[in-house]
């Protein structure tokens, strides 16, 4: 048998092929491996540098820094809780508003305009153009246009009629958590919609056809078979959007009012981790102040890591137990 193959094709199935000692494969593997290791090293180096810079503040304040509510550069008392609260609140608000809209755009583009490629392409490109706008522009637009509009048409009526609800209890001035949340929502819509679109396109048609054959309406098909199938992917898109919202600096600092405050009211000014670093780092005039700001950066870094790890864990658990695994 082996001989026959050798005569006809010049190859044998029985011959063991020894890999070349130093060929293109090795070089490629080496380079790609080096790139991967480099990224990991970069991450570790970032963490080490941040911890080193924050060491003075870590030793001075200890864990009290995370729950301290005073930020007083004159009396040298620093606490990060208002900023953590601001970051979490604005990101949550951004997700609450941006996720349904982004997902809606993705569903519309994949389910409703499947036939018309040009329209789908045009609309999809326009949505993704939102991501191309620099965040400073969002900040300026928010400060000069969106904030007065929201204040006059949304916040003031809400405060007037529903002022007894703690969410709307403060007198609105336009520069508050609410406006910042809306700006962030606009900024994460393109991310969420682009990734969700890819996820939804990857759902096999067999899923849809099966539901149709059972007599489901279009909406029921989407709700009961497409979305659950794409659940983990959509969750990943959410985390990507959340990652952008957590780290966003310039757009937020223009419209959030820059006052460190913990309050349930959405119409009160606030502050986020990234905004305080942007505002105060240039003027931090003594080592403890600089160290406290670097510790804020360390907290932000840790927050982003934790969110991503948590998301990965959840996705792993979801794909492990879902009924829709292929």
């Amino acid at each position, binding site marked *: 048998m082996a001989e026959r193959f050798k005569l006809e094709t010049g190859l044998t199935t029985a011959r063991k092929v020894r890999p070349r000692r130093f060929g293109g494969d090795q070089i490629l593997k080496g380079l790609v491996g080096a790139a991967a290791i480099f990224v990991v090293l970069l991450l570790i180096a970032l963490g080490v540098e941040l911890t080193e810079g924050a060491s003075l503040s870590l030793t001075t304040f200890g864990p009290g820094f995370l729950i301290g509510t*005073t*930020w*007083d*550069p*004159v*009396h040298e008392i620093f606490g990060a809780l208002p900023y953590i609260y601001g970051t979490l609140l604005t990101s949550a608000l951004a997700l609450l508003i941006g996720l349904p809209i982004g997902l809606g755009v993705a569903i519309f583009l994949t389910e409703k305009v499947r036939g018309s490629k040009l329209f789908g392409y045009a609309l999809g490109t326009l949505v993704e153009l939102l991501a191309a706008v620099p965040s400073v522009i969002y900040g300026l637009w928010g*400060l*000069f246009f969106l*904030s*007065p509009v929201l204040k006059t048409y949304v916040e003031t009526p809400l405060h007037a009629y529903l002022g007894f609800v703690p969410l709307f209890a403060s*007198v609105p*001035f*336009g*520069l508050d958590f609410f406006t910042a949340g809306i700006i962030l929502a606009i900024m994460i819509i393109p991310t969420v919609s682009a990734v969700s679109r890819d996820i939804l396109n990857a759902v096999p048609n067999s899923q849809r056809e099966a539901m149709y054959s059972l007599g489901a309406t279009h909406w029921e098909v989407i709700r009961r078979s497409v979305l659950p199938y794409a659940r983990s992917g959509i969750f990943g898109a959410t985390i990507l959007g959340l990652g952008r919202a957590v780290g966003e600096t310039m757009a937020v*600092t*223009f419209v959030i*009012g*820059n*006052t460190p405050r913990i309050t349930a009211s959405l119409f009160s*000014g606030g502050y986020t981790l990234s*905004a305080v670093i942007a*505002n*105060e780092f*240039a*003027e*931090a*005039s*003594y*080592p403890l102040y600089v160290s406290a700001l670097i510790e804020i950066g360390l907290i932000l870094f840790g927050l982003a890591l934790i969110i991503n790890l948590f998301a990965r864990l959840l996705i792993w658990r979801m794909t492990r137990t879902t009924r829709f695994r292929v």
Partner: protein
Amino acid sequence: MQTSRKAVSGTTIALVVVIVIVIAGFGAYVAFYTPGPTTVTSVSTSVSTSVATSVATSVSTSVATSVSTATSVSTSVSTSVSTSVTTATSTYLAAATINGAGGTLVFPLMSSWIFGFTQVQPNIEVNYSPVGSGAGIAQITAGTVNFGESDAPLKTSQYAALPNGSTLLTIPVSASGVVPAYNIPGISSTTHLNFTGNVLAGIFLGDITAWNAPAIAALNPGATLPSNPIVVVHRSDGSGTMYAFTQYLSDSNATWRTKVGFSTSVDWPTGIGCKGNAGVAGCIANTQYSIGPLEIAYQIQNPGAINYGAVQNHAGHFVLANLTNINLAVQAGASSGLPAGNAQWSSFSIINNIFNDSMDTQVYPVTTFTYALVYQSLSASYAGTSNAQAVGLVNFLWWVVNSGQNAGKNIGYPSLPANVVTLDDTTLNSITYNGTPILGS
């Protein structure tokens, strides 16, 4: 195996070559083109005319070099050049690049100084980064710039952080005032509300919450104040303007002094923070019934944009800030008690000096110096400073203190009084390079 690759078409190659040539040509133009002398015929009536008349300059200056130094936001820096005949020719100093960093308060003035100085010494290039007073102090301490600029003098702890054995000189180069700007729809622009330091402290502490509060109404019997709540606006970034304002509030109100204190960045009890002087002005303009501290230069450059109020000085007068009364405040506050240039200026303050001065009726109480910071002994071991750089730096500062003081008139900066100029001259004369004084006299 058949290859499915098409050969690259000739058109593509041609396009690529053309694009490469265009980019290379543009790059060469930018890098190598040195513009010859051209006559600038347009003359504008702003700052540069006063600068140009105060220095001897040749008839024309190339537009390109003037544009490269006047890279500021201020609209008053123009490219106009006086067409006066050269009256004196000075020997030009050796070429050097000088870098400085510091507060934003003096940035428009610094831009016009750099422009004016370049007329006199075209070989010296001065770069200034308005990164904030604290950053200016940090950078001069670290030795990454040739001179720092700050609206607040160094604190004792900052003097202690300087390199061992070095002496940092503090040179007042200009002054400014802080006004309480507000936006109240019912009050006309001709009415200027009156404030005292105590009332301002109460507003910024959050104790006085409505515009028609008795404390404010008592000071303004003629005005109909609305009952709306006061929205407090302050700077979100550190600022010399806030340093001066909080110092004034600390002097006026004991609660503010203990609770908040004064610094470039403080823990504001209430209010929203906006970035930069322009940010504060924008926030005040966009928010009705708001009040915030704003630098007087901004007011003068944008007249009528925002209303501001008068502040009561210790003589009991309500003074509406303008260049005249700020000048008077500087003269009164700096008439005595000025430390030597190489001493520590941590406890010097015009605001404190005139706070209890009940004789001067026209001084504006919220006035502050702004300082240039330079090391006394320059040498190559300090940030690689060359002799040319040291000479250029000292000459620049000398020009600023002696010849450049008129430059600020149209944009809202007062000029230094004579005794401060004398002090600064003495300080500048003491700067040495490798042990020898730079300015011969």
